[in-house]
C-alpha cells in the first residue's frame, strides 16, 4: 500500500511539475491512439453498417473474419506489421518501422475489427420493422443509414469506447513496431513496462495512474455524449 500511495504522489508531482518527458509521452500516447481510433472509426462505422444491411455471397465469412479480428492478440499484430515494414519487407522503403506512424498502423489494425464488429451488432439489433417503417415513409438509402446510426447511437458510442480502450491499453504491438525509443516512440504503456523492468515501481505506478486518468477522461466525455439527458 505504501508503494501505491508513493506512486500516486509521484504521479501528482510529475503532472504538476509538468515533467517534460512524461508530458511528451502522454501527448504521444493521446496522439497515436487518437489517430488510430479515428481511422478505425472512419473504416469501421461504415463497414459495420454496410455488413449489417447488405446481403451478398460470403457475408457470413466476412463477419466471421471481423469477429475473429476482434480478438487478435496485439503481439501478433505487432509481428505482422513489423514484417511488413522491415527494410526487407514489402513496405520497407517507406521507413516507417520504429516511428509513431508504425504504432498508429498497428493500433488501427487492432481497433478496426472491434469498431466494425460492434457497429455491425448495434445496427443489426435495430428491428427489421423499424427499417421497413423508414422505407415506407420514403427514406432513401442514405437517409435510412443516417436514421439507423442515430437510432444505434448508444451502442455505437460504446463501440468507439471499446475501440479506444483496446488500443490505449495495449503494449505488445507498440513495443514491437515502435521500439520504445525515448522521445520518439515511447508511449505510456511501453514506458510503464520499461520502468517496471528497471525496478522503478513508483515511476511505473505514476505512469499507470496517468494512463488510467487519461483513459477515464476520454471515456467520461464519450459517456456524456452517449447517455440521454434527463430533464
Amino acid at each position, binding site marked *: 500500500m505504501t508503494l501505491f500511495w508513493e506512486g500516486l504522489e509521484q504521479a501528482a508531482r510529475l503532472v504538476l511539475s509538468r515533467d517534460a518527458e512524461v508530458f511528451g509521452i502522454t501527448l504521444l500516447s493521446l496522439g497515436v491512439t487518437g489517430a488510430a481510433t479515428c481511422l478505425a472509426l472512419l473504416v469501421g462505422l461504415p463497414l459495420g453498417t454496410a455488413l449489417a444491411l447488405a446481403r451478398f455471397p460470403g457475408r457470413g465469412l466476412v463477419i466471421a473474419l471481423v469477429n475473429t479480428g476482434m480478438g487478435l492478440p496485439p503481439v501478433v499484430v505487432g509481428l505482422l506489421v513489423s514484417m511488413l515494414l522491415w527494410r526487407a519487407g514489402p513496405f520497407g522503403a517507406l521507413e516507417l518501422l520504429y516511428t509513431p506512424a508504425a504504432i498508429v498502423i498497428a493500433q488501427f489494425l487492432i481497433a478496426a475489427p472491434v469498431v466494425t464488429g460492434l457497429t455491425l451488432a448495434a445496427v443489426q439489433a435495430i*428491428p427489421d*420493422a423499424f427499417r421497413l417503417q*423508414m422505407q415506407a*415513409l*420514403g427514406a432513401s438509402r442514405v*437517409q435510412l443509414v443516417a*436514421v439507423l446510426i442515430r437510432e444505434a447511437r448508444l451502442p455505437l458510442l460504446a463501440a468507439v469506447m471499446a475501440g479506444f480502450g483496446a488500443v490505449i491499453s495495449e503494449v505488445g504491438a507498440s513495443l514491437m513496431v515502435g521500439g520504445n525509443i525515448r522521445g520518439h516512440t515511447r508511449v505510456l504503456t511501453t514506458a510503464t513496462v520499461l520502468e517496471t523492468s528497471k525496478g522503478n515501481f513508483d515511476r511505473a505506478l505514476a505512469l499507470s495512474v496517468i494512463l488510467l486518468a487519461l483513459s477515464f477522461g476520454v471515456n467520461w466525455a464519450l459517456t456524456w455524449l452517449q447517455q440521454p439527458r434527463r430533464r
Partner: protein
Amino acid sequence: MLDVPALSLEAGEILAVIGPNGAGKSTLLRVSALLEPPTRGTVALKGRVPGSPGERLLARRRMAAVFSTPSLARGSVAGSVRLALTFRGVRPREADRRVRPWLERLGIGELSARPVATLSGGEAQRASLARALAAEPDVLFLDEPFATLDPPTRDRLLDDLGPLLRASGTTTMLVTHARSEALRLGDRIAVLLDGRLAQLGLPQTVFGAPANEAVARLVGMENVLAGTVAETRDGLVRIAVSALTVTVVGEAAPGERVLVGVRPEDVLLEPAGGGGPSSAQNRFEGRVVAVTPLGPLQRIALDCGWALNALVTRPAVTALGLAPGQAVTATFKATAAHLIRRVGLT
C-alpha cells in the same frame, strides 16, 4: 404465396383487406406499397408503373404506411413525427407547421415535446398515424394498426381515425384480421384466403352474401349447412339438410348440392312448441347444447338435428331461461339465410 390477378384502389376510398393469419394480407400491402417487389406483375400509382429504383423511391414518397408496431425514432414526439416530411426534403420549421394540426387532430398535441419513449401504446400509434398523415400521402397503408392496442384504446382510436380519413379523403388500404374494424372503416372489403382474392365488394355484400363457405366462416357466418335442393318455386329454394328442410330466397336447380349460411344473430329463439304464424319460413325444434358468454351477448349452441348457433343478449337468456338441455324453437327468415352455390364442386 400471393396470387392476385388484379386489385385497384379508387381515389378517396378505404379498402379493407381481411383474411386469416398467413393469408398474405401483409405481403399484399408490402407489394402495393412498393416495399417488396412482386415476382410477377406490376404496381401502378395513378396509372404509372415506377421502373427504376429512383422512380420507386419517388413513388414511395407519395405514399405512407403505419404498421402494428409504431417504430418511432428516438427523440421528441415532434421530431419523430416530422420524419416523413424530412425525408421529402421539407425544412424543420415548415415540417413543424404541417405536423402540428395532425398532432391536434389525433389528440396528442400537448405531447409534442415529450420523448417518444414515454408514450403509451395508444399515444405512440397516434404519433405514427400523425407522421404518416402529415406527409399528405396519395395512398395510406395501414397494416393491423390496432393489433397491439387494448380494446378501449383501440375503440377510441377507431372512433377518431374514421372521420379523419373521410374528411381528408385519403385513399387507404387497411389490412386487418378484425371483422369489426373492416366493417367500421371499409368502403369496400377484399377477402384474402391462401393468397387469393376470394371476394371483393361492399361490406353488406361480403358479410351478407359471402362467395363461398370459407368466406362465410371468415365473415362470421357461423352456421353453414350443406344440403341438396329439393324444390325451387316463387323465388324460394327448399333445401334438404339431413331430414329437415331449409327455405332460402334465391335460385338453384333441383338436385344441386348447395350450402346455406345463416348469421347467428339472425337466429331467433323462443320456447319449444310455440307454433303461431310468423314471417320466418324456417322453424326448427332443438335443444340447447351450450351457453357461452361473449361480452354483452351469449352464444347459444343448439342441436336441431344439425348444429346451429344463435347470438342473443343476456336479458333474453334470462327471460327464456336458456340452459343446456332445454328444448327451444329456433327460427330464421328465408331472407336471412344466404345460398352459397358450390359451383365446380361435387
